[in-house]
């Protein structure tokens, strides 16, 4: 396995290449189209943030990356890890990837860890599944990993049970377990959502440090643009299972192109705006995935749908490059640059964008 490169090479030989990914679940009420045509790619050491509300298909995308959909779920398209196709791959290959070349962590670390086993044993199990070796050696590795994620007195706490740790520590234990075999890719599904704010910063900081140290790529699923600003190089904004905007993190924050992204940015508390408008909500509810609205799925909630007219109700907008303002972020793939799926005329977007969102904003990632 080649060592992680510190300078990612955009467009060329990405570590992860997702192309036209679809995930569907047949149900009694109809087919739920959880993910429709998601594509992105990222190189070693890079982070992509997948953002959206609940039900936008971001978690379904995360599970599909490791082939973790089961039962009646149908997955099409392509997920390549270092050139190796994972969609439709054999169980054996997928098992060797999961926990080996690609680790995963979840939203709620308390329910993601088995309550009946010691944390050390759970880490040892993950390690030995791929690397084998003696229990003693694996245990030493487990202590090392717990030290790596900054669990104090790791040599003793390795024998504790999950309920004996705080929420932040549990998530760090999950990270230790996911990284036990030094994966090239870490899929983090809402890793900080269940944690309180101070703990969130701690876990994100740890993830960033470990990424710098180990050179892994991170797919970060979140509904929180603040987390994205903190962590991501590029951003995929999802709505009703589709990508509505995809760009580098800088251009998402400086020149967001989609009204939904404006809404997401508006729902971050901003002191730049006068008081009643500091915290803005997107009106309405996320749409049904069985019967999504016709045309642009966002049109019932979009304040600008009338500006465009009938197209919003009848035509699904294509995800198109907007040319100017294309992000500087690496590895956007498929031509690079920023892409937006919206019927609004490109030249009118800047003018329609609510005041306080975009270029004047200070939330751009550190």
């Amino acid at each position, binding site marked *: 396995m080649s060592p992680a490169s510190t300078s990612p090479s955009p467009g060329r030989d990405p570590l992860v290449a997702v192309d036209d990914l679809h995930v569907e679940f047949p149900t009694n009420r109809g087919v739920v189209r959880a993910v429709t045509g998601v594509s992105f790619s990222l190189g070693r050491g890079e982070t992509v943030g997948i953002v959206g509300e609940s039900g936008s298909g971001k978690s379904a995308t995360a*599970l599909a990356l*490791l082939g*973790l959909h089961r039962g009646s779920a149908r997955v099409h398209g392509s997920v390549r890890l270092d050139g190796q196709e994972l969609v439709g791959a054999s*169980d054996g290959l997928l*098992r*060797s*990837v*999961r*926990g*080996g070349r690609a*680790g*995963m962590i*979840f939203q*709620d670390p308390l*329910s*993601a*860890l*088995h*309550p*009946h*086993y010691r944390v050390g044993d759970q880490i040892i*199990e*993950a390690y030995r*599944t*791929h690397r084998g070796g003696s229990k003693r050696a694996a245990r030493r590795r487990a202590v090392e990993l717990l030290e790596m994620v900054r669990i104090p007195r790791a040599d003793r706490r390795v024998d504790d*049970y999950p*309920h004996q740790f705080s929420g932040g520590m549990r998530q760090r234990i*999950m990270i230790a*377990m*996911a990284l036990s075999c030094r994966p090239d890719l870490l899929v983090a599904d809402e890793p900080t959502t269940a944690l309180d704010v101070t703990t969130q910063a701690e876990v994100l900081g740890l993830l960033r440090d470990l990424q710098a140290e180990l050179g892994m790529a991170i797919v970060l699923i979140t509904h929180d643009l603040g987390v994205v600003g903190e962590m991501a190089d590029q951003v995929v904004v999802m709505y009703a299972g589709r990508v509505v905007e995809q760009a580098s993190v800088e251009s998402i924050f400086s020149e967001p192109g989609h009204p939904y992204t404006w809404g997401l940015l508006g729902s971050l508390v901003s002191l730049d705006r006068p008081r009643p408008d500091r915290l803005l909500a997107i009106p309405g509810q996320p749409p049904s995935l069985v019967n999504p609205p016709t045309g642009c799925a966002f049109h019932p909630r979009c304040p600008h749908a009338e500006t465009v007219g009938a197209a919003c109700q009848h035509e699904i907008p294509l995800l198109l490059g907007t040319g100017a303002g294309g992000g500087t972020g690496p590895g956007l793939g498929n031509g690079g640059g920023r892409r937006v799926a919206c019927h609004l005329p490109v030249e009118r977007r800047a003018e329609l964008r609510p005041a306080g969102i975009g270029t004047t904003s200070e939330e751009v990632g550190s």
Partner: protein
Amino acid sequence: MAGFLLRRILGMLIVLLCLLAVTFIIFYVFPANPARDICGKGCTAATVASIDRQLGLNKPLWAQFGQYVSGIFTGRRFGQGSHLVACNFPCFGYSYQDNLPVSTLILQRLPVTASIAVGAAILWLAGGVTIGAVAALKKNTWVDRVVTATSLVGLALPVFLVAIVLLFLLTAKLGVLPDPSYTSIFVNPGAFFTGMIQPWIALAMVYAAVYARFTRAKLIEAMGEQYITTARAKGLRERRTVVHHGLRSAITPVITILGMDFGGLLGGAVIVETVYGLPGIGQLFLQAVDKVDIPVVTGCTLLAGFFVIAANLIVDLVYASLDPRVRLA
């Protein structure tokens, strides 16, 4: 932990004392006259009065109760003069019908009931959990539907019917098994198994159905947990995921009901013992009720109560050892 045990055992004694008091009151209130039953035909008022005296039945209820309780710890004597009989510690009363202390009667029969209960429990636990696990993993397929339907039939079948059908088929028609009987496993293991297999199956059928349904529900619940996805995301084989992560959680509540059921069964498998004529606690109890042998009925009631409460305590201890989140306090 020591404090927990001490408190639980103390609580257990109090519950048993209450049980004993209720049993006493019931027999006092009931229009039973044990002395008359004992002295039989040609009974005179004088004989009845003398038997009453011998048994201590002429004393007030609370005094009888006190005598009974103190007899458990110190032993006691029944009758007077040449009719004096000793009932040594721990004395749970004396059966005049059988002319033996109740504890002796119970100890004679306990191995039979214990053998029935242990064998049946092993059968239904192994069968029920396996069947339930298969149904859970094949959820909503024809396998699951067949298992669910069959277990419903198993639930609906009364034990006595299964027992009689087994007896008719296996012993009377096919002749593959001898008439069920109890032989000590230490004397003749072969005869022990062939003699006990029918009562085991008859009992296990109903329980296995219950356990299959319960295991199915619990395993489906466990397999939906996030930690199962974690296990798969670690790259574990599906088999290991199911057994080590799913079943490990699902089995805990199953063990709980196993303790309750097993404890209840030790108090006497009345129907099975009666159908197959096995000399266990259940049969002893039934005969004692029939003959109004009050000391035996009281002893059996206490024993059944003891097993149920003890099973509860053991379940709590086992549960705490299975689930590290449970703290005994």
